């Protein structure tokens, strides 16, 4: 029986700048993972980085403006998986922020400030 090729997973995802749109990212990454045999750990890391980058762009970059768009593009270059996130929000480089010090105790931890650790 001839093999039926899987439908080509789109290499470009366009999202409206609303947090609810992020639910579309995971199935898109899963489709690409299937099409390109990406291992589960790679998928996990991709989903983690994209969730951080996209939610930061929506919440902070666009300051909650729901009328903007974000684009995620996927490329596979000589075995390297590359995702490019494009937005029109003001520039922000998380690597220039001082590394938040690890909280010594649970009481001193500021909830929600851990995203930059995860992207790094």
């Amino acid at each position, binding site marked *: 029986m001839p093999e039926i090729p899987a439908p080509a997973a789109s290499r470009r995802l366009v999202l409206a700048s609303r947090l609810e749109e992020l639910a579309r990212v995971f199935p898109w990454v899963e489709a690409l993972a299937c099409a390109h045999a990406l291992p589960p750990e790679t998928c996990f890391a991709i989903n983690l980085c994209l969730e951080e980058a996209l939610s930061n762009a929506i919440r902070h970059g666009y300051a909650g403006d729901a009328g903007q768009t974000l684009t995620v593009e996927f490329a596979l270059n000589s075995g390297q998986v590359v995702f490019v996130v494009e937005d029109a929000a003001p520039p922000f480089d998380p690597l220039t922020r001082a590394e938040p010090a690890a909280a010594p105790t649970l009481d001193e931890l500021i*909830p*929600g400030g851990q995203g930059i650790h995860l992207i790094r």
Partner: protein
Amino acid sequence: MKITTDTMEGGITQVTLEGRLDIEGAAAIDLKMNVIAGSASRLLLDMRQVSFLGSMGLRSIVVPAQAIKRRGGKLVIFDPVPMVEEVFKAANIDSIIPIHHDLDAALAALK
């Protein structure tokens, strides 16, 4: 994301999470987690069936954990899968909320 609660021996509350703790998942459990944290003094958070954890998901665990601690209680994270545990470690949460893979050790940590 599904959240269920059970009472174990010794007054320990077992909270079982199932699914992806992404932004949507975190929003789905936030209210219930905070309600549970308002009354439970010893909480075993069963993470065995959680397949993903992002920073909003972390927050939905850390905030209730802080509330329990302020009231003199304890929360233990039980048996996360390796990639989920990596997220706790990357955020240095593992040094302030105990993670145990062995149930006896988890229960002992809650005494």
